[in-house]
């Protein structure tokens, strides 16, 4: 069953939420719904952990357009503006019916980039699968020699007689590349051109021979990101996204989506600080007036960020994200570190030692707190963007900007 055409979706926020809620109640498997209604989180998690059931649900969800509400009507979405889409997302989260965070690259980066730059064939081939959760995507942008200076990437793609491309190089920090079906790949196609003008963007099938992701253990102890070796990988020209040597413009679409998508909930409500307050009550840290002030401060800051996200989404409407997204991403990165440290301070022993098997959540949050200040462009890079694009400051000097890429200095 599908929802009505977007023009028939209720205009009022509450009505839209109700319509989505009603649809979920009608379509979710009965035991899933019962577990949600009973507040039985463990049962919901068990259902979600079953690959077959999860896939079946994402298929139903994807067909309705609710997994990708901002995508255009007729292309797998409902054509909703960003702020209205967030109402849909909130409802999905309430019923634990949303797509997992692993799908961030697919839903938030790949989808919108393909929508903007893809051929009809590429859209037809990829968008339905993305919407229905059949494919996991990863981002193959960063390289050992090209992080913040992403345009300095040196992975090579050379076009062959039959128009296919031969790719060689190494990528790094690629989250979920070891599990992914597809990757967003940027490679150098014209080394004689300045660095921004010799890059081409591809949609890489990760099962292609020569693609070799190797998991890297992160500071958190998990191994979610990878280094990805690309050795004589043959990529058909039909996998090229956008014109040859104009991959940087395509990448800007992806990067803008990324910053815009990393600022937290577009809703004024429960956030990370709420959990910390709950924890402080349990541990007794709430009795300390200094910690209390910092907790309320963090609570205020998180709500202010949520308000900013709503405002950003309303302002963006259906338009493309702007540099304003960097403001929210930077604010989120700052807040995330504050919360990460504060969380450990609420533990009686500062979360420095625990009985076997009793690792406090605060430890994970602490170890993950630097994620947002590095991933998706570091906070320094966001500050540059804000300063240059929002406030009009001169661009940072880049002596290599106009030089042919092959004449760059190395090391």
């Amino acid at each position, binding site marked *: 069953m599908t929802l009505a055409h977007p023009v028939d979706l209720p205009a009022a926020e509450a009505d839209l939420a109700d319509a989505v809620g009603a649809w979920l109640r009608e379509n979710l498997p009965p035991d899933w719904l019962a577990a949600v209604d009973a507040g039985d989180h463990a049962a919901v998690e068990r259902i979600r952990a079953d690959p077959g059931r999860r896939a079946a649900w994402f298929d139903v969800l994807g067909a309705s357009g609710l997994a990708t509400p901002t995508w255009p009507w007729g292309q797998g979405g409902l054509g909703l503006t960003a702020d209205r889409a967030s109402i849909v997302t909130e409802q999905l989260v309430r019923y634990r019916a949303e797509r997992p965070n692993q799908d961030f690259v697919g839903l938030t980066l790949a989808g919108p980039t393909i929508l903007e730059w893809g051929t009809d064939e590429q859209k037809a081939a990829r968008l339905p699968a993305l919407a229905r959760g059949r494919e996991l995507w990863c981002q193959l942008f960063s390289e050992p020699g090209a992080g913040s200076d992403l345009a300095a990437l040196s992975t090579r793609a050379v076009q062959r007689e039959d128009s296919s491309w031969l790719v060689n190089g190494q990528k790094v920090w690629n989250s979920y590349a070891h599990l992914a079906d597809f990757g967003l790949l940027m490679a150098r196609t014209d080394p004689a051109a300045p660095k921004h003008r010799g890059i081409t963007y591809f949609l890489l099938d990760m099962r292609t021979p020569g693609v070799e992701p190797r998991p890297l253990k992160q500071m958190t102890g998990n191994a979610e990101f990878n280094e990805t070796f690309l050795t004589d990988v043959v990529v058909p020209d039909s996998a090229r996204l956008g014109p040859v040597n104009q991959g940087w413009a395509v990448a800007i679409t992806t990067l803008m989506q990324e910053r815009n998508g990393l600022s937290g909930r577009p809703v004024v409500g429960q956030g990370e600080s*709420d*959990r910390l307050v709950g924890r402080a009550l349990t541990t007794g840290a709430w009795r300390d007036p200094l910690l209390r002030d910092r907790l309320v401060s963090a609570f205020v800051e998180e709500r202010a960020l949520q308000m900013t996200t*709503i405002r950003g989404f309303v302002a963006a409407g259906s338009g493309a994200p702007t540099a304003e997204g960097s403001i929210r991403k930077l604010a989120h990165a700052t807040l995330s570190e504050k919360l990460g440290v504060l969380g450990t301070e609420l533990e009686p022993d500062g979360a420095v030692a625990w009985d076997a098997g009793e690792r406090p959540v605060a430890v994970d949050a602490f170890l993950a707190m630097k994620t947002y200040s590095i991933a998706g462009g570091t906070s320094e890079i966001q500050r540059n963007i*804000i300063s240059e694009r929002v406030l009009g400051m001169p661009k940072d000097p880049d002596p290599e900007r106009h030089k042919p890429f092959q004449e760059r200095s190395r090391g």
Partner: protein
Amino acid sequence: MYAEQRDPEFGWTGEHRQLRETVRGLLAERAPVSRSRELAEVGERYDPALYAALAEQVGLQGLALPERFGGYGGTLLDLAIVVEEMGRVLHGGPFFPTVALAAPALMAAADEAACAEYLPRIADGTLTAALAVVEGSGVWSADDVSTTADIGGLLTGAKFPVLDGADADLLVLAARGPEGVSLYLVEPGTPGLRRAPMETLDGTRRMGRLTLDRTPARRIGTPGQGWAAVVQAREVASVLMAAEQVGAMAACVELTAEYAKTRRQFGRLIGSFQGVKHRLADMAVRLEMSRSAAYWAAWQDPGTDEFSFGAATARSFCSEAYLQTAQDTIQLHGGIGFTWEHDAHLYLRRARADMALLGTPTQVRAELETTVLAAAAELDSAVPAWPAIEVPA
């Protein structure tokens, strides 16, 4: 109370934009920041001709007052736009104390006769008013009200600092009577009332000390329910002050960005140094977060829990953000920013003074604890962080 909001959150309309442009244009012409400085330097309270024009030409004093009391029935959001523009140019004088403090207190006391008598005169610009609550401690708390009202309604005590207290045409006071705290009205010239101007950190706003010695006063509203009215008025004023601070912050950011794009050192524009660029970027973040907090609050309906929460959030966030922004403004201007002639210190003075005016941010956060605890009690552990901690990008 104030009119209900009809437009969805952050859904600015053409009317909002037009109001902003009108007010900005009028202030640019007749009350730029140089004029605020001039009035402060000569110790003048305000420009009466401008005050009259604000009422007669644009109807700003009565903008958000109900029509039956001579107002235009606009929303608090409209008023927030107006005071934001005033904040940009550090507009002082009786507007804020009258429109953002005393009028909301009169409305909250819900005394029909008093509203009918005074609000129309506030709306037409012929009456200025002040709200006198704190008594030196700076804390907005019913327990800190020790000015007393005896059985005969005679007030004894002291109120300070009171915004525009030495000059306003009407004083709205909180005092403790036999039934508890109530609101009282006192007009200048009443026996036993002494008013002395105080010297102020922020010269653009006048403050006074009121001493009351068996001063006859008129009690308004339900006896003993005055503190509830003070709380409501303070919330309205907090939202409006936050909007005013957004205007001031925006002016600081613009001033500083402009300077960084013209001042050269080491053969380069200082705006090309990362130390400068990054501090500016942080200023922009603070400004935008403040704008969201202030206007989210202004978009809620007074009297709701959301409004109370928004007011406290905006007050806590914006007043600290503004102080830091004013400090950064001076920093990025170097020596010129430290001079009397430059406007930067005027913004800094205003920022610090604002912090003390409606209860300090620390007090506001202590008050927020109840709300925060309620939110934590409703924690739904099923709702994952969004996006979760580990983002794959």
